[in-house]
């Protein structure tokens, strides 16, 4: 038994047991954003969602968007590249904060 069980994903809607109108609004918004072709295709949106799923390290989302990517015609190269985009962003976000470190060093006369 772990905190994350794949079968729990199917129970997502149960969160709407209380204040159901809020969950209904969420699902309507969510489905409008990722469930339909718009300025971006569903395939492109699923790849973005897969990258975000990894950045946020959400097992439910990784499971769901691996399937969504495959069911929208993506291949392993595209899916892996999307994850690298997320990883590169995370690395870049870490590294760009080194400017803050350098600012602090400068404040202390160390740079």
């Amino acid at each position: 038994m772990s905190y994350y069980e794949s079968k729990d994903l199917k129970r997502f809607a149960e969160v709407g047991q209380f204040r159901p109108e809020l969950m209904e609004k969420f699902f309507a918004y969510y489905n409008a954003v990722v469930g339909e072709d718009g300025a971006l295709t569903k395939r492109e949106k699923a790849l973005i969602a897969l990258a975000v799923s990894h950045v946020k390290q959400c097992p439910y989302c990784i499971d769901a968007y691996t399937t969504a990517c495959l069911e929208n015609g993506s291949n392993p190269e595209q899916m892996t590249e999307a994850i690298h985009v997320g990883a590169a962003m995370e690395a870049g976000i870490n590294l760009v904060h080194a400017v803050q470190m350098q600012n602090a060093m400068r404040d202390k006369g160390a740079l």
Partner: protein
Amino acid sequence: MEAISTAQKAASLSQRFGFAEHLGRAALDLKPSVIDTLQINITKLCNQACVHCHVDASPRRREMMSDAVIQQVLEVLKANPSLQKLDITGGAPELHPRFRMIVEAARALGRTVMVRHNLTVTLDPHPISGESLQDLPDFFAEQGLVVISSLPYHQSYFTDKQRGAGVFDKSLESIRRLNQVGYGQPGTGLELHLVYNPVGAFLPASQASLEADYKQELWQHHGLVFNQLFALTNMPIHRFKVQLKKNDGYENYMEKLVGAFNPSAAQGIMCRSLISVAYDGQLYDCDFNQMLNLPLKCHGESRSIFDFHTTELQERSIQVADHCFGCTAGAGSSCGGNTIKQ
């Protein structure tokens, strides 16, 4: 008469997910429509042994349609002008010693003849005789066959994972040879259709988007052309079912198919317009039912090609079980791809 009947007697067939009940709830009464296609499975012998094959075909299988059954198939075609199409499948049907004779005879009767061609059979030696089949593209073109070929993806990884190492490269070489004799080329009238099916337990993407990807990738990277792409759903039977059970994924896959049940797709399912004939002459509602040993029934009795009566077949009840959800999920799945057009 009830148009769809559940196959209660076939102990191995699951009715747990209630296909007939789903039809009932959607107020669908799916009677056979105009039966215009005779699909004949002439051999289970194949040069390949693909992980998803619903026929369990392989180089070790030896089932072959007999001369007597072949003659009767041709008699039935002759006597029933409404049967406009002969769809020849297997195994690899080209490995049957009478394959070319069947094609020539059906074409002489003026029928459209389709062959489920696995592409690699042109390049591999015959598994039994060792003979070369490299003249197949010329034969197909001479006869004006409609060629329908499985290519699970426009890249090697998914294709080879499903159909075996090296199959992708061989398939491309075979498509190149078909293109050279005119298949897929504008103005020739020679049709080459490719078939996509998912490499695992997920539903196919939209047929139109996959077709656009295939056309772009095969042309840009390999200079190859084809006419249409048919997107098929993996049927949860035989080898694919074994794979699902091994990965503990059968229940999830069935729930996915049931959840994607689409009444519009159900209306176009292929069992309404074709009759499937086994190598031994037994008649079935479709090739999947054939592989599950679920014969079609007229007045409660099975039928063979030797007692083929269109009127009686038109009034029969189609035999259904849980695997039928594979044909009704999403945009639907049939031998000709989606059952609803996007």
